[in-house]
């Protein structure tokens, strides 16, 4: 006759389980939180996407900034 393990719900355990990928059965509210986390992480990822370089440093040139 074991007792059900106590499950603490809320955004912190959900975040931890979500980030480390352990199995976790979220309730309805936590499913919504998971959706929020997913959207947030995606938006943060997009916002810190790196710079893009076009071309290569081949030819030192006075163009297009030549004001003699």
């Amino acid at each position, binding site marked *: 006759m074991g007792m059900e393990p106590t499950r603490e719900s809320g955004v912190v355990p959900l975040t931890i389980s979500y980030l480390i990928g352990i199995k976790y059965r979220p309730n309805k509210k936590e499913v919504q939180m998971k959706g*929020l986390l997913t959207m947030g992480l995606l938006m943060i990822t997009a916002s810190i996407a790196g710079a893009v*370089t*076009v071309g*290569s440093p081949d*030819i030192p*040139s006075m163009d297009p*900034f*030549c*004001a003699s």
Partner: protein
Amino acid sequence: MIALAEEMNGPMTIGDISWQRGGSSGSAQGTYNSFKIYMGLSSSDELTDTFESNYISGTRTLVYATSSQTMTAGPDEWMTIILDTPFQYNGTDNLVVEIQWAGGSNMFYTYMWETGSNRGLMNKTNIGSPTGTLYTRMSELMFTPESSLQQYSFAYIKSLW
């Protein structure tokens, strides 16, 4: 000059544009008057000799303007300009970057590269001319996305639900 879609790695809200100083050639600093940067979209991989016709109609946008622009950097360092108006690049069409300036001082050398096709267009004598001379080389450019962390805070995301 024109950056191709496959070189841009998808859509981006361009917040900054940078040029890399060409080693220690020229001056470490140059100043350029009535300096403007335009960005827009193009459906062609090459430029024609007419500035305006290289844009998809309605996409040419003034993204930066100042009465006097100083370009300064150490050897091989990048000189970055933060745009007044971030440009929404769609990731599908090619990106046209046009700079204008009239008078100034010094020669600020930056790196260019040989593209193998007409991707550079310059008119060095008449800023009002609708046409220029085509070149197969263009500036090496770096585009940095605008940071949008503040705009998309968790409070904002939560308000969507």
